[in-house]
């Protein structure tokens, strides 16, 4: 098996240049590659295009890279919960492309699967459809959407082995499996890195062929955006 181990986030992200297009896994703050985001922040590369469902929150996740203005453009589906983001967007400092969430997931999947375009009903008749080709199939109108690919895809998994096989946990899976497939270079950070042979092949979510670099992350914060507890249910 091919050994894809790197030492840490610094080594994994060392050749990300200014102006790179990055895919960053996660939904809200769930399943985000915390170590790599910190390394990119530290490294100070800028003019980045970030493809990620959300833009983090003020002071965490991609929100950290927005604060330092390292991001030139965001491609996302939902960017609420981030005041700095909304400010940069409304003032025109930040370029933003908002995409329906399912279309985003499918564009990334298509990018990884070698499908340059597909048709979806989402967004027909809306701003999202402006300038895009539409076609009628069996009496219903669909919108043509293009694939998305990235220079670097950065994903977070629960467990991985040194050949890059990945297993995700809970709803921290979200966009990570598709993003792992759509990067020229895919970097995976995992909570637990094991030797080849220690993961059950039946349980692998992302086969190692998609992953180029892998390391065991440290000090995961896993911040919670909305801590809701049973006895807080409004009845």
């Amino acid at each position, binding site marked *: 098996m091919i050994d894809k181990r790197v030492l840490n986030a610094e080594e994994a992200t060392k050749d990300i240049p200014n102006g790179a297009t990055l895919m960053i896994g996660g*939904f*809200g*703050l*769930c*399943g985000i590659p915390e170590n790599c985001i910190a390394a990119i922040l530290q490294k100070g590369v800028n003019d980045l295009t970030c493809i990620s*469902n959300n833009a983090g929150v003020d002071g965490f996740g991609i929100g950290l890279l927005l604060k330092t203005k390292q991001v030139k453009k965001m491609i*996302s*589906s*939902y*960017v*609420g*919960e981030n005041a700095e983001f*909304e400010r940069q*967007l*409304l003032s025109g400092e930040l370029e*933003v492309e*908002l995409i*329906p*969430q*399912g*279309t*985003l*997931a*499918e564009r*990334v*999947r298509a990018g990884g699967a070698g499908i340059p375009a597909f048709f*979806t*009903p*989402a*967004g*027909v*008749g*809306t*701003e*999202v459809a402006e300038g895009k080709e539409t076609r009628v199939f069996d009496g219903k109108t669909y919108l043509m959407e293009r694939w998305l690919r990235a220079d670097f895809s950065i994903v977070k998994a*629960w467990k991985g082995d040194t050949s890059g096989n990945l297993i995700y*946990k*809970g*709803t*921290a*899976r*979200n*966009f*990570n*499996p*598709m993003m792992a497939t759509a990067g020229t270079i895919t970097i995976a950070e995992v909570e637990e890195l094991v030797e080849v042979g220690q993961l059950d092949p039946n349980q692998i*979510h992302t086969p190692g062929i998609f992953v180029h670099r892998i390391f065991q992350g440290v000090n995961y914060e*896993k911040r*919670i*955006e*909305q*801590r*809701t*507890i*049973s*006895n*807080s*249910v*409004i*009845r």
Partner: protein
Amino acid sequence: MLDKIGIAKRIAQEVRSGMYINLGIGIPTLVANYIPTSMNVVLQSENGLLGIGPFPTEDQVDPDLINAGKQTITMMPGSALFSSADSFGMIRGGKVNLTILGAMEVSENGDIANWKVPGKMVKGMGGAMDLVASAQNIIVAMQHCSKEGASKLLKKCSLPITGLNCVKKIVSDLAVLDVLPSGGFKLLERAPGVSVEQIKNATAGKLIIEGEIPEMKLA
């Protein structure tokens, strides 16, 4: 007039056993609290879960387990986890039986606007455009009028559209209405203490009233 909980309770009456349901953020999330436990339904969370359970107790909290509103949750026995691509595959593929979501405006032909107020608020559409484009049945939970008293049930939406001809039913603070395929809001029920006249005055789009309109029954 109904408060948010009243709207959630009334929408819960639309739920049937055997349904797979996607609940949007806000009032729609509250609906889960009022679905009778005797009913077998599965709640879908578009970030990758079928089988949303109750909110966790303090020691059950798992940061790797959240709903689409980023709230901590638990899983029901028999749950399934999947990627966002699979999640929207089941949504686009028409497997989700009922979608309940909020709206800023609905037009009399069933168009919905709920993702953007130009120049003021841009949070993004999230999964709403995918959901409304493909769901079998869409019920909207909304306030009938803005804080300034302007109707949100319109002839034509003034805000950027989320989807066309998709809303089937509306439960507002004032009424339950069907959106007819031929166009128009058909008044079905009045909220407690609300008159037909009030609903007429609060509805800018075409309102269809046939016979006596009953007051809604809430448990």
